[in-house]
């Protein structure tokens, strides 16, 4: 079980959180004309790397805030956690 540092609450056990997917994907702006490919990249296409991955987690049984986790998908090492607007 991972030990995750919520940027708002501190270190808590994984069972308080829900995984929320790749955090490098940006939603296209509303009302913007975009190609099918751009849209598919946003909705479906993910790199799913082995190694470092920036991802969203949701402190679902805690403060209910979404935040970013920089994690190694192979070793589960967590390098850093950030608030949604913060960059690595």
């Amino acid at each position, binding site marked *: *079980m*991972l*030990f995750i540092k919520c940027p708002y609450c501190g270190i808590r*056990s994984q069972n308080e959180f*829900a995984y*929320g997917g790749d955090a490098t994907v940006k*939603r*296209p702006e*509303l*009302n913007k004309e*975009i190609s*099918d490919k751009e*849209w598919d990249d*946003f*909705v*479906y296409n993910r790199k799913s790397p082995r190694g470092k991955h920036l991802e*969203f987690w*949701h402190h*679902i049984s805690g403060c*209910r*805030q*979404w935040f970013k986790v920089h994690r190694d998908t192979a*070793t*589960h090492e*967590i390098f850093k956690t950030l608030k*949604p*607007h913060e960059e690595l």
Partner: protein
Amino acid sequence: MTQEFRLKDEGLIDRSKKISFKFNGKKYFGYEGDTLASALIANGVHLVGRSFKYHRPRGFYGAGVDDPYALVQLIRNNETIPNIKATEQELFEGLEAKSVNCWPNVNFDIGGINNFLRIFLPAGFYYKTFMWPKSFWYRIYEPFIRKAAGFGVVTHEHDKEKYEHKYEYCDLLVTGSGPSGLASAYSAAKNGAKVILAEDKPRFGGSLLTSEVTIGNQTGKEWADKIVTELKEMPNVVVKNRAQVFGYYDHNMLVMSERISEHMPKTEKFMPKQKLWYIRAKEVVISSGSIERPIVFGNNDTPGILLSSAAKEYMKVYGVLVGKKPLIFTNNDSAYETAIEFKKNGINPIVLDSRKELNSDLITEAKNLGIDIKFEHVVVNANGYRKVKSADIAKISEDKTNLGKIENIACDCICVSGFWTPTIHLASQSGGKTKFNEDIDAFIPSQSKQNETTVGSANGIFNLNDTLKNSFEAGYELSKKITSKENKLSVPAVVEKKNSKHDKFWCVPLPKGKKYKRFLDFQNDVAVSDIELALREGYRSIEHVKRYTTLGMATDQGKTSNLNGLQLVSNIENKVVPEVGHTTFRPPYTPVSIGAIVGREVGKHSKPTRKSPMHSWHEKNNAVFVDAGLWLRPRYYKKGNETLFDASKREAENVRKNVGVCDVTTLGKIDVKGPDAAEFLNRVYTNAWLKLPVGKARYGVMLREDGIVMDDGTTTRVSENHYHMTTTTAQAANVLSHLEYYLQIVWPELNVNVVSTTEQWAGAAIAGPKSRDLLQKLFPETDCSNEGLPFMGFIETKLFGVYARIFRISFSGELAYEVNVESDYGNFMWEKIIELGEEFKIQPYGTEALSTLRIEMGHVAGSELDGRTTPFDSSLEGLLSKKKDFIGKRSLQKEAFISPDREKLVGVVPLDKKTSIPEGSYIVRDANAKLPNPKLGHVSASCWSVEYNNPFSLAIIKDGKNMIGQKLFALSPLKSKSIPVEIVSSHYVDPKGERVRS
């Protein structure tokens, strides 16, 4: 019966406390402090079970967790428990145990015939033989094999024991209380660290209990006792025996199972049987020790053959002799300690040492005691079926390939020592690397991945002096990092015997012309020949060899077999062991009860139960409940002998005719507040929200970004910047997370807050032509007319002084209202509705009638919005705004989504107007077409239409809108039904929606 193998005074058992127990129906005696194994051996019982595949007799091979043989069925306090290790089960008064895997009994086992058929039962036999015909597997092969195999019987009774979970945090977790564990725990605890010390056995001390050493001016055992006593008194230390740390998980979380009461005749009141500890440790010291390795020779699984360290433990801890004519077969010095121990107890052992004659402290001592030692000698084969009777021994050449003349000597036990294997399971589970140490012919931990340090013999250090030095140092250094204290203890002086080098020898060659079975894995009956066969058949990776032969796969997980298996593979492949590598170590190290994993979350505690404030009223009025997510909802209210069908029909008819009331508290409710709330809803929902006035509700549909319908519900504008959103019962939690995601991550510039208010409001839906009359009675001061409270209108008012909200919304298709009051007043509201509704013939209705009403109206719900349908599929396209963007809109342009033959919502009526169509049925053109019959779609929901008094279903079928009027078939292969049907509009009742607006 006398305990004829019990020594007079040696051991740590309490001879003043005699304990009676039964094994295979026969009564025996032992003493307090015995294990079932030691007590049986004291009584001369060595035959305890039959092996897994060949049903060969099984005895004891170890004295603890490493023993692969002695699994028994335990009967304790009227419960039967399989897979109990006799070497770990402590004796208690009245204990009963039985042999497993044998029929009719352990002495005469019919399955033993497999032993004589064994040339027909090589590795992979089951894979090769029972492959075809396929249908035979379920009916013939599998039931037979299942009966013939397995270790014990699982009860079908409910487990009455309690199991608990505990979460703990510490600076340092020490796994094992041998010399290395005690030293590191003590040194860290004295330096201020919060320490947990875990020992899987009842007694602390590990090897110090059986070795002849001096620490300071005390014996090893005295020193261990002193340290444990001191640790137990320290407030910063938790000391646990009978506690096995079995798994090392991510981020330094380890799991330990503590056996609280299995050593007692029954669990005391309010006590758990086991406790599972989830321990998050800043640092871990792995002091799990080492396990003696077997040497492989002919029929080396005969009862009476066991590890030499186990023989010593039985003498020194339990005061029990494993035999009176012992043969000791070794490739190293440690077995001499066993020989000396026998000699001290008046028994004359014979030692066979594979090495050339040499001298060391121990060998010299043995020689001085007059022990018969045969150097360069090996055991070639053991004779005897149920118990070893004699051994064929021979001189072996220096290169270990040639045997001299074979000689037979009588013996009643053979104590084997093939040197030591560090227990690296936890270190490896932690993700750390391992490396092969040539000096000890075994793997040891190498680079750590997590915060762990392996010390003592688990790290391949087999002398006490270095072990204590390193362990004191490790405890100090690790604690210093955490506590920043520098209270360093001095390491006590050690007196121990120096060992000479072991012989790199692990398998005795077969004499010419002999085909003795030589076992590697005793629990799974894997012999040398099985591995050879697997390699001949082309298996190369050690992971594949393991799975094909089942080497190391049983409940003991290869604790004794692993390295010899690797040696064999590398010999045949002309490789060295590190090239072959080892298989992955996975938790758990020892078997864990399912009960312990589940803990207290059993039965109704397996999930929370959510009840509405009106629950007790429903109970009193004969409601039959149904699970709706975590909620319990009334399915129908039973009157007399009514069936579900009768009751739901009556309730639904009453809604269409008079008025009904339904508990809708479970609906998800979310408060959406803030100046940008309207804009936010406009982006979340597919339809327009900017112009919704205060005091009005609107139905909305939300999509996922991939264009699939996520949820639907009504949202009401309570005031300028305050909206009350409702979701379906099932999607409430997902919708909240979804909204939070967009507010926090995608559009943080929107000034909006959302919060769940599901449990703050109790809701009652009042539906039916007489609902307005009832509403007017409930709210006499309020104008409930069609003008005062129009369709989709909302007002805040008082229900006999209680704040209430009325929404004029309808799920049933009838004139209907939903009244909300604060949860605490839910029951008050409900009782008022029932009381005042009496004159209008009100009846409560449950989810079944609710479904009937919505199905015949063609309203979609969870069975249509099943995570696969777009708004087009579910006839919700009218709600798609063309003027604005919203979540998922771009996906709706996808070619597949707008394809004309997409499955769409329709209604289905059986031609005979009688036969109900099972939900899940396929709609096909031709009921008798060749399989696979092309499927047009499926039936999503069925009901008995109370409006037309015939069955009606909703279905999602290809090109649905153009199919209306067609005569097709509904097929349910599961229920063997083929029903001729007609496709009709999904709006079966009141297609223009006049009633809700009336």
